[in-house]
């Protein structure tokens, strides 16, 4: 399709619209004036002005995880682009589809150390799935199209497009909306039938099958298939942090998150199973613990992943199955149903039910003996938030409290920084989540340390009427590091104390947000009610025990079934 002579910036916006982009999170700058001039005139794309580029990237990431569509962020050259880096690395580590557009100095000035010049192309190469430095305006249609195609197919990820000022300003005659892609990029989607048959053989004969669901299940929209397979097979489901929401955690076959801060019975099930079907996970060290020989030692390991490079990378498996999680699960179900009748009455299923109800009882018992204030608060939250609420988390103790205790019931409602563990993620991700799902409530489970890293974007929320509620676990510590110092470094709290400032309620009010302090867990319900009723973005400052710990946990160097602090769990 030809549209006569178009400016590079106009081409970019036309292609964005063609890719279905409705919103972009960004901050303008000198080299982006042409692009922002087009965004000013063309209202098809809603631009949300952020207060820091890191937040723009996290917001685009949060938007992508909630909507399932690529998120878009925009930053100017030099510092704008370097500020994006953390957010992009985070999205890429968690296979979240994000397209980043960055301004660049004019092509003739590249390499001259011009004002606000940084080599964004080389800086972002290792933290993106792919990136482009566009040197000719004519290339823009193909580049933008491929940016979205690459970001949102195969193993999803981040694609960055670096746009020099003159490329955006030049007018050319060009065909829009090309279809051509790269010859070398052919994501493998269809699973190999031979591997499917091997898988089915193992699962059909297993006495104690277990399903491990990672973020890939959610990303591939395969949660229905997963649940069906679990029920048919009589297999419990444990998840990774990224897989939270792959199965409703109140389902009798759900054992919750496994791993370093996982639930004890999730980890035990991994220790006990004789067949492990891992779907869309990369066996990160936060899942497996450090003693790989203790990870599912009795099981035949089956690994379904869309990225062949993940097979045998962190863990040697018996049956690799490369392909899309949804298609693989569909194929497995189809063949399994021909081979096996459902077995819901087995000893294993009985054990799963016991393990599930032990956890449920523990979590439902808010004031259980030995519970810290943090434990009580996160348990309270379960009773307050309805199933549709989107929960994002910051990084650290607050994140692990939420991962461990918060009962996630739907996919894409638990948004957390898994691979990179980037403090400051939760709040801007909540902004992106709210923009993607304006009719739903969005709550950021935060820590005081994490929230302070990106709290300035409260301004963005107020100015754009984005109502997110931040619940801060306020212990005036960098709590997770403090916990490790307490447990493994003789309580020498080296540089983890945060002092007494700020007053988070006043901070919220200074931005024009609603703020309330909660001193007792039982007051949280009213505070959350007040926050939602205020109609404003809100900050709830929850005062927790300064030395509250997230337990149980796998100690450093330990294996998955040897957790410390497990005595607080209900024994079965």
């Amino acid at each position, binding site marked *: 399709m030809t549209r006569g002579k178009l400016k590079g910036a106009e081409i970019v916006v036309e292609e964005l619209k063609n890719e279905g982009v409705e919103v972009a999170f960004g901050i303008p700058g000198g080299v982006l004036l042409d692009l922002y001039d087009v965004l000013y005139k063309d209202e098809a794309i809603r631009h949300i002005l952020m207060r820091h580029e890191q937040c723009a990237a996290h917001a685009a990431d949060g938007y992508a995880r909630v909507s399932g569509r690529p998120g878009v962020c925009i930053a100017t050259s030099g510092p704008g682009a370097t500020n994006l880096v953390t957010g992009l690395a985070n999205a890429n580590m968690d296979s979240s589809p994000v397209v980043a557009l960055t301004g660049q100095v004019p092509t003739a000035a590249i390499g001259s150390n011009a004002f606000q010049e940084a080599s964004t*192309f*080389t800086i972002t190469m290792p933290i993106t799935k*792919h990136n482009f430095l566009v*040197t000719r305006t004519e290339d823009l249609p193909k580049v933008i199209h491929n940016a979205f195609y690459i970001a949102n197919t195969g193993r999803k990820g981040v694609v960055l497009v670096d746009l020099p000022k003159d490329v955006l300003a030049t007018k050319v005659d060009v065909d829009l909306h090309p279809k051509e892609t790269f010859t070398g990029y052919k994501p493998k989607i269809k699973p190999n039938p031979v591997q499917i048959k091997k898988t089915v053989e193992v699962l059909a004969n297993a006495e104690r099958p277990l399903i491990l669901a990672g973020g890939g299940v959610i990303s591939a929209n395969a949660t229905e298939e997963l649940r069906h397979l679990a029920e048919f097979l009589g297999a419990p489901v444990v998840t990774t942090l990224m897989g939270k929401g792959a199965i409703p955690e109140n389902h009798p076959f759900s054992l919750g998150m496994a791993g370093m801060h996982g639930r004890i019975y999730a980890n035990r099930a991994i220790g006990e199973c004789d067949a492990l079907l891992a779907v869309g996970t990369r066996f990160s060290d936060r899942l497996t613990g450090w003693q790989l020989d203790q990870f599912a030692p009795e099981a035949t390991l089956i690994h379904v992943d869309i*990225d062949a490079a993940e*097979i045998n*990378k962190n863990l040697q498996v018996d049956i690799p199955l490369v392909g899309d999680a949804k298609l693989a699960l569909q194929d497995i179900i189809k063949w399994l149903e021909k081979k096996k009748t459902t077995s819901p009455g087995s000893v294993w299923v009985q054990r799963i039910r016991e393990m599930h109800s032990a956890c449920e009882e523990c979590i439902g018992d808010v004031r259980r003996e030995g519970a810290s204030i943090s434990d009580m608060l996160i348990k309270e939250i379960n009773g307050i938030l309805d199933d549709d609420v989107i929960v994002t988390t910051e990084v650290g103790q607050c994140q692990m409290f939420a991962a461990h205790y918060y009962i996630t019931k739907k996919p894409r409602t638990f948004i957390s920084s898994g691979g990179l563990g980037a403090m400051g993620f939760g709040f801007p991700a909540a902004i992106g989540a709210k923009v993607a799902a304006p009719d739903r409530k969005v709550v950021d489970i935060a820590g005081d340390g994490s929230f302070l890293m990106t709290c300035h974007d409260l301004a963005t929320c107020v100015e754009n009427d984005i109502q997110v509620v931040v619940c801060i676990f306020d212990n005036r510590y960098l709590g997770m590091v403090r916990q490790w110092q307490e447990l493994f470094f003789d309580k020498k709290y080296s540089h983890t104390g945060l002092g007494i400032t700020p007053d988070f309620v006043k901070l919220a009010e200074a931005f024009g947000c609603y703020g309330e302090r909660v001193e007792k867990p039982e007051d949280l319900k009213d505070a959350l009610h007040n926050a939602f009723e205020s109609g404003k973005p809100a900050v709830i400052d929850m005062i927790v025990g300064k030395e509250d710990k997230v337990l149980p946990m796998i100690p450093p160097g330990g294996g998955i079934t040897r957790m410390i602090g497990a005595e607080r769990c209900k024994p079965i």
Partner: protein
Amino acid sequence: MQAHIISLLVEDHPGVLTRMSGMFTMRGINITSLTVSPCEKKGLSRMTVAIDGSESELEKVRKQLSNLIEVVKIVDLKEDKAVIRDLCLMKVHVKDSNARSEVMQLAEAYRAKIANATLDSIIVELTEEPKTIDRFVDLMKHFGVKQLFRTGVTAIGMDTGGGLER
């Protein structure tokens, strides 16, 4: 540890070399030699990468390489099924006419060319398998190697593979 040679067809884009070498750095793998050149098809380049590592490391490298968008094709070249060559240019010190004739004789034995000669040095040129070059260089050290330049290996599969046809 074992030497492996990987032949790649890549899109001829700016930055593709950085992306390739960056991948190796990121995964903690040391490249022992790397050559890049145009190939039979316009718009594509051929890279020959030599690495030291185990079979499983090689497998990981192959998979990571195939994840790079601009990599069109990857061939793992086995030593016995490929023609492998390295080009060496070496300035050898010759202290007298005796030394000069000895160097020239040895060069002839190895089928190396004399590319230039001065009164006190000879530039020899040898295209051979890397191991043969290693041996020749060791011999020349006896006379004194003033400068040594090697291009790094390039290799071509003997079977029908290695090109675009597969």
